[in-house]
């Protein structure tokens, strides 16, 4: 159907407010940030931003702190994403198999998801503090440890607590998504599989998994992006201590931009992360497609 000139103008007028807002607050900042990442945009050159090419990018990739933060982020993602998905799927299948009382379990498992990150992080910090609840329990109640264990004071100790929080908080979301997917798998497939003599494991591998493949991919991509966006929990639980060993890419970016004023560096860092995420997403889509 061909549109007349008038109705095209009308459409344009209707789209304009939305496009203007999108352009001003999303497109423009991204373009500006991209430009910023090629400039010496820090305290020293605040009033004269000069073009310095790839220097910011070079500085980021050669920075030892960034490498630590990047490794921490990778580890966080590599641990929390599979753990959340496996546990989420496991819980979803358990709930799916219940004849009644599904709603109660669903709500219970979903509660951590709707609780604020700030509150959860502070509670986890309180539990794992050297003088915290867990150590009190271990040393005073069950006498399993002679003295307090310094859970938060090492790089991997602090990171592990953040990972644990991420997994605990993420199970509910995965459960809900997978439960919805499980309900779309046609019952007849299970029935015919039973007739062919398939056991529970075979049904899971040959019926359930292919049936929810799309959802698995969706969860994988969303969670990977989420893993790279981890910020609140590590910021509140360890705040980079000791000596910036528990920084993740976003806390490091924030530190560089707002505590030391290196805006150019932070801009370059954010584009590097965006690139990494884009590559990961493409790879994940490829991988899933090949398997069909």
């Amino acid at each position, binding site marked *: 159907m061909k549109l007349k000139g008038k109705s095209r103008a009308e459409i344009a007028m209707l789209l304009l407010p939305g496009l203007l807002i999108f352009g001003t607050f999303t497109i423009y900042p991204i373009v500006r940030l991209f430009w910023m990442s090629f400039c010496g945009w820090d*305290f020293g050159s605040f*009033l004269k931003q000069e073009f310095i090419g790839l220097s910011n990018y070079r500085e980021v990739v050669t920075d030892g702190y960034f490498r630590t933060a990047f490794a921490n982020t990778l580890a966080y993602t590599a641990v929390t994403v599979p753990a959340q998905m496996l546990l989420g799927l496991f819980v979803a299948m358990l709930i799916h198999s219940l004849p009644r009382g599904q709603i109660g379990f669903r709500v219970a498992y979903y509660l951590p998801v709707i609780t604020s*990150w700030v509150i959860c992080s502070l509670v986890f910090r309180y539990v794992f503090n050297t003088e915290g609840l867990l150590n009190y329990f271990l040393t005073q109640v069950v006498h399993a440890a002679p003295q307090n264990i310094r859970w938060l*004071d090492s790089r991997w100790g*602090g990171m592990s607590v953040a990972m644990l929080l991420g997994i605990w908080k993420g199970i509910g979301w995965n459960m809900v998504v997978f439960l919805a997917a499980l309900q779309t798998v046609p019952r007849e497939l299970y029935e015919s599989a039973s007739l062919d003599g398939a056991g529970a494991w075979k049904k899971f591998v040959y019926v359930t998994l292919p049936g929810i493949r799309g959802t698995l991919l969706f969860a994988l991509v969303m969670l990977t992006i989420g893993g790279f966006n981890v910020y609140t929990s590590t910021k509140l*639980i360890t705040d980079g*201590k000791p000596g910036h060993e528990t920084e993740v890419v976003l806390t490091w970016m924030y530190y560089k931009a707002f505590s030391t004023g290196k805006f150019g560096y932070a801009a370059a860092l954010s584009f590097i992360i965006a690139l990494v995420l884009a590559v990961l997403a493409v790879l994940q889509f490829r991988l899933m497609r090949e398997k069909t």
Partner: protein
Amino acid sequence: MRREKIKKIPALLLASAIGLAATAGCGSSAPAGSETAARSEESAKESEKKTETGTGTPEEAAEEPAGTVTISFWHHYSAQSEENKTLTEILIPEFEKENPGIQVNAVSHEWADLHDKLLISARSDTLPDVARLDSAWVPEFQKMGILVPLNQEIDGFEEAADALLESAMSTAAIGGDQYGLALNTNTKILYYNKEAFEKAGLAVPETMEDFAAACRALAGANENGQQVWGYDEPALSGWNLCPFIWSMGGALTDETQTKATGYINSPETVAAIEMLAELYQENAITGWNSGDIPMTDGFGTGRYMMLLEGPWKVAELAGAYPDFAYGTAAVPAGKDGSVSVLGGEDIAMFRTANRDAAWKFMTFMTGAYAQEEMAKCGQIPCNKEALRSDTVKNADFAPYIEQLKTAKSRPTVAAWSEIDTELATAVTAVVNGEKTAQEAMDELAPKVDQLLSE
């Protein structure tokens, strides 16, 4: 029939749940945004309130000549504090009475917010006329080129500067020029748990050797079987390390603040770091780990026996642990005597300011009258005349006055925050036993040289 109904409920729940998940997913950034919004709203209200109270009655304002100037003054006296009350109810009305035709619009920010807001305002040309700056920020803003070099461009600078403490003025002196006036000063002294020292039969440490011995003697387990430490240090940055390094004869840079090699890795500096690392490894001191007890609580409940802290601790302890008995003393002396680290604030004007009005306000705020009024709510004056007043002699912070005579400021260089980061990282590696103090400082020195030369 019934079955179908039951099937629909989970579907509905799921749908709403996914909706929630979507909002929860984006939620991590939302609170921060709304918090800043709320905060700026608060400060907007604050400024509104202040213009109301600060400008006098409407009739007066109407009578004012057309040439009335309004200057804005950004500070980080917290909105609810005594200091803020003194500023808005006593000092600004007095200033406006003395200087008809000038009005002051004072805006209170959170400490960290003020730093970031000034950064952003500099980018959008919306800086205030005058601001109260943490002395650690002055080099950064100076390098941005937004501060006025007072000694070069303001008449009557010498007179104003002579009235103020030289040591405090040094926090705003960069490359021979003066970028602010010292507004208030502070430093750290030793706080100790009186009961613990009496029980252990220990004298209050006067030297660094005594201090280390006291840390070891007081550490251990208390009667409830809880671990206690001789000393608490809440971080490992320059503010924390400098009193030890300087008192023990070390340094971070040379006098001209251009070179660190030979200073930050000198035997004296290394010895200071080694002392702290050894005490930590013997479980005699702690405090900088994520899992440690916060400072005031640890001290007030007898888990930390000593601290080095500033004058604000008096009020904090009185509020949280009013019955706790503690004493104060000078920083333990090393071979260079008892040298503490200077904190404090400067008052500075920006290039876009109305200079006459801004300068009048700055000299008023650093004058004897305003300084004595502020001393009444715990701000240590920099004005020599105010320092001799009875208010100061009877104040809580009297013990600090002696320590201030020898206190030194941290390097006034633009790269200080990065140097501070590197220093903390290097010392963290030492206390955790990953490197020896000498190795870590030798690695650190060229990095700091590089940062100083940028």
